[in-house]
């Protein structure tokens, strides 16, 4: 059962990493324009200023 002392923190930390990533996606506005982001994947990669 000693392995629990190791596994429980590991599972909590992994969950926390996922949560932190989720918080970042919210803060960087990745849910603010779902339709536009779906369309942007069809566009050229070259940013306008490199042309």
């Amino acid at each position, binding site marked *: *059962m000693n392995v*629990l002392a190791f596994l*429980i923190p590991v*599972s*909590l930390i992994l*969950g*926390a*990493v*996922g*949560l*932190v*990533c*989720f*918080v*970042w996606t*919210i*803060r*960087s*506005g990745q*849910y*603010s*324009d*779902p*339709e*536009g982001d779906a*369309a*942007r994947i*069809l*566009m*050229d990669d070259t940013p*306008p*200023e490199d*042309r």
Partner: protein
Amino acid sequence: MTATACPACNAAPAAERVAEAAEPNMMLSVPGVTCAACIGTIERGLAQVTGITGARVNLTNKRVSLRTDLPVDTVVGQLSKLGYKAFPLDAGVLGQESDPAGRDLALRLGVAGFAMMNVMLLSVAVWSGAADATRDLFHLISAAIAVPVVGFSGQPFFKSAWSALRVRRLNMDVPISLAILLATGMSVYESLNGGHHAYFDAGLSLTFFLLIGRYLDHRTRASARSAARELAALETQTAERLDGQGRAITVPISELAVGDCILVPTGGRTPVDGTLQTPEALTDRSFLTGESHPVQLISGASVSAGEINLGAPLRMVATSVGEDTTLRRMARLVEGAENARNRYTGLADRAAQVYAPAVHLLALVAFLGWILISGDVRFALNVAIAVLIITCPCALGLAVPAVSTAAIGKLYELGFLVKSGTALERLAEVDSVVFDKTGTVTLPGVSSIAEELTETEKSVALALAQNSMHPIARAVQTALVDVVPAKLSAVEEVAGCGIKGRHGGVDVFLGRGDNGLTLIIGDKERSLEKQETLRDGAGEAVAALDAAGLNIALVSGDAPSNVSAVAFELGIRDLAAGVTPDNKHRLIERRQSDGQRVAMIGDGLNDTAALAAAHASIAPSTAMDASRNAADVVLLRDGLHDIPTLFRIANAATRLSRQNFAIATAYNLVAVPIALLGFATPLLAALAMSTSSITVLLNALRVRSAK
């Protein structure tokens, strides 16, 4: 936790740099943006303009945000060169962040999901037989996760419950909050005292599932900005004030005072109400009247804020400013009507009014009953909490949002954008439909031109029409879309009359004549019939709605003869002509106070108040921003064919919501006696909760097969 301090953020610094490089300071509404190609055209086109950086299109909100020091007019001009009509929005009024409430809910949802999964892992161990010290440890770890998370993620429910209790009312959030708080509180006590049953997982999954319902509900309304706020943003932000020497100085509108002399350039909007000083002027009042007839004004005429100057630059003296202008008064009218509609009690809230007291009573009876029987307060409290958790399954919180999300998804495929959560319920209750005429069932058109004119006449007419912003000129352009325009010289707009020029050595003219719209080439004069065309599918829609037993009426600000012609063609007997915006609003209110439930279908800014006052409202996508925002449903396709389908799906969705309530109640009838008898365990609670939620969700999906 700040964005910069967390390690995950630094893992993707590229995205942050992009965001920092261009904090936008200007926002424009661009209704014409529809696809990936538009995004590319606009962003690439604006990037080539010196002085504009970081142009970014938001396709969902149909907006462009950018950073620039150029005046707004220049940017609007650049966009119209790219082929997009743009309207400046006041970023301060709309707020920079697109949807703070949605972000907030998503964050709480994410935190609750994280905690629920971790606690569930620990709970599975307890259910499968962990005992003694291990069980106590797992309970304590669960408590350490659950208590702060419930405190954070449960706030939307607690706040809503508290605001209901403060006015001595019960809503669905009261039993929800009570169940979450009591389950967590009692479980903490049990964990500290080595008890067998802890309901941390139940409390958290309740929070999580209900937040999903809340988030779905919010998403369906996310695109709905308050119409009143859009109206305010429509106002021009700066004005040209003339000083004593007649020089124009650009000042913010807030600095204008009564008595100021203001210059309005061609194509500009009048900033405040006032009286005209220039001998004559031509303005488009369509935002007030809905009918796009330009109005000829003479010196001393009164002008209201928001009119578009179609002729030469005009001068006016301000008579009312700020909150007193016509535009602001209309915004207040819309705001009032919206508030009235927000008081509509949805199906879920009505169910809660019956359900909440019953649940509390049942839990109280269980508590008192078990104290009498066993004398064990701790056990009695446990039973009461089990009753609260089992009777408050997520099914009830999910029943309505799940159905409306499925129905709204289905309607989106059919070309309807449904913005309000309770719109479907309200549409299902409607018993009469009021159509606006111009722009809704009819489109301005000059349909006969294409057949009657010779090729030369067509090309001259088009070339002349291209030089005017007049609505009729625009209709001529639409009718002659595949014609090559002729070469003209000395083109000049004759205010209030038409456009003249020279072509091939003779004078040409397009504009007002003795018999309506006239085209003159040299000494040849042609009268062009101006007529409206019915929107596609208007006839079918009216016939189908009539067959479905709805009363249908036609309302318009137009002249009686035009209105009755259209009504006759559509087979509508109930009509009202020459109605002002105020009266449209009052007409809807009068019908509703007579006990009718009215659905309003309209497009103009003049319909906005009526749209907001109606029991349910629909606007075509060609409508003004403000009307689209006041409406519950926006019609994305051109035709009206599918309007009857909208009503049918709304009916099906409401029926399914009721079914879902019945299913949730049936689960309670089975599970509640078990809980009352004291046999409920955390495992049973978790099972009852998830099975009823899944059944309700699956049932909700059936709306997609509704015809």
